[in-house]
């Protein structure tokens, strides 16, 4: 097995419940300072997955889409920062916007539409690619940017 494949797992999610189960599992591996990027098209289910990761971290408030407010903050066993860069043009907006800030080192940061900051994304991140739309099943690929983040792959059922 190559280093590349060891850092990646792919699952088929037949329905939203299975995607939620994945999110709850991933949350078990969450540690302060982790950055999780959620990739996928409009309606792929990024916010749906974010909700279950948040629930797994112990957030009890409703996690809604932060598209308009850009960043929502929650408290679970760790602070959760939920970013949605949908409206932004590029990395300059994200950086100038202070959307990546020091407080995030104490919690878990979920980023929807991370392609908006692709030039400045750190290697040390977990990527979750959601492929599919509508009622169809989703192919979800989880990729660890560094060996340390492999713990996320180990908790996937």
């Amino acid at each position, binding site marked *: 097995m190559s280093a590349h494949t060891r850092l990646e797992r792919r699952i088929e999610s037949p329905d939203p419940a299975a995607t939620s189960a994945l999110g709850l599992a991933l949350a078990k591996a969450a540690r302060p300072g982790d950055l999780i990027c959620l990739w996928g098209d*409009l309606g792929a289910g990024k916010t749906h997955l974010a909700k279950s990761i948040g629930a797994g971290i112990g957030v009890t408030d409703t996690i809604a889409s932060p*598209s308009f407010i850009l960043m929502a903050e929650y408290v679970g066993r760790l602070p959760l920062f939920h970013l949605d860069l949908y*409206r932004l043009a590029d990395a300059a*907006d994200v950086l100038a916007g*202070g959307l990546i800030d020091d407080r995030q080192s104490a919690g878990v940061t979920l980023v929807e539409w991370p392609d908006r900051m692709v030039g400045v994304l750190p290697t040390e991140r977990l990527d979750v690619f959601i492929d599919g739309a*509508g009622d169809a099943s989703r192919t979800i690929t989880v990729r660890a940017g560094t060996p340390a983040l492999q713990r996320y792959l180990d908790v996937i059922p």
Partner: protein
Amino acid sequence: MSELLVLAIESSCDETGIAVIEDGRQIVSNVVASQVALHAPSGGIVPEVAARAHLRWIVPVLDEAWGDAGVDWPDVSAIAVTYGPGLAGSLLVGINFAKALAWVHDVPLIGVNHLEGHVYAAWLRDPGEADREDPVFPLVALVVSGGHTFLTEMRDHLTYRLLGSTLDDAAGEAFDKVGRLLGLGYPGGPAIERAAEAAIARDRVFPRAWLGDSFDLSFSGLKTAARRIVTEARAEAGLAGEAEAPLPDPLVAELAWGFQDAVVDVLATKTIRAARTGGARSIVLGGGVAANSALRARLAGEAEALGIPLIVPRPALCTDNGAMIGAAGARRLAAGERAGLDLDARPSLPLAVR
């Protein structure tokens, strides 16, 4: 001057708003430096661009509001400021400005929840406006904007019970995203409303998420359905392979109408049911989406049928502004509340609990 004068500051999102409010109702002055034009090229607000713009605008906006009001510091009873929810950087500009003014002029400081400001906009009167009835308790308030969508019940001033809120996308966000799908500009709400008005065929049915008897709302499925419907419509129009080609205007109008009808139907039906269930004596509508005339018309008709008044501020008072913060701040001042100079931004400040 014997009237209760509140200077109010709002900077939670992309509007820098400062107002002077008398007796919790009367707008003496109300200035909003709208940053919409600044943000339009990127299709939405840019927060730190917003925070910087707040810094750039806050003093000129105060100067203008102050000049319009023609008041002096000894007349000011309190300074009210939004301390959440919102973007931390943007909130801090307003909060620190308010604190400095409160300290220098030795005036009480009041922290106001941005969301309660949207509800209290219903009490505001414009200069020269004829007096009218205030909203009567118990009331049901629907607040719909780009970032927030919720229904709350008030049995008295400053007491909120959350009836339901969106589980995923805010209504305004759904308007923006579907507006973009249809190739309409930003902000999507007014663009969809204009397009829908031109619709000739009014029979497109978009799905409604009723969520049983719950007062919670969901617009994520509608957004996903809209994406599918638009893709199918593109194929029907022979544009399947031409991603950049615009849909013909009549088709855009038809789809905009169908989408808007679904949003309005769910919002109005749940609001009216909440009012009926709780024995509400008035209904308040607030937030940026309250400027949508289809929603206003539908709710007005149904409230009338129910025999209770619907109170909707004029559109400029539905979107973010300082006046609404002054109206809520005056209530908090009257209730004896004071914030310390350690008032901090609360980016995820809730309004109501279930």
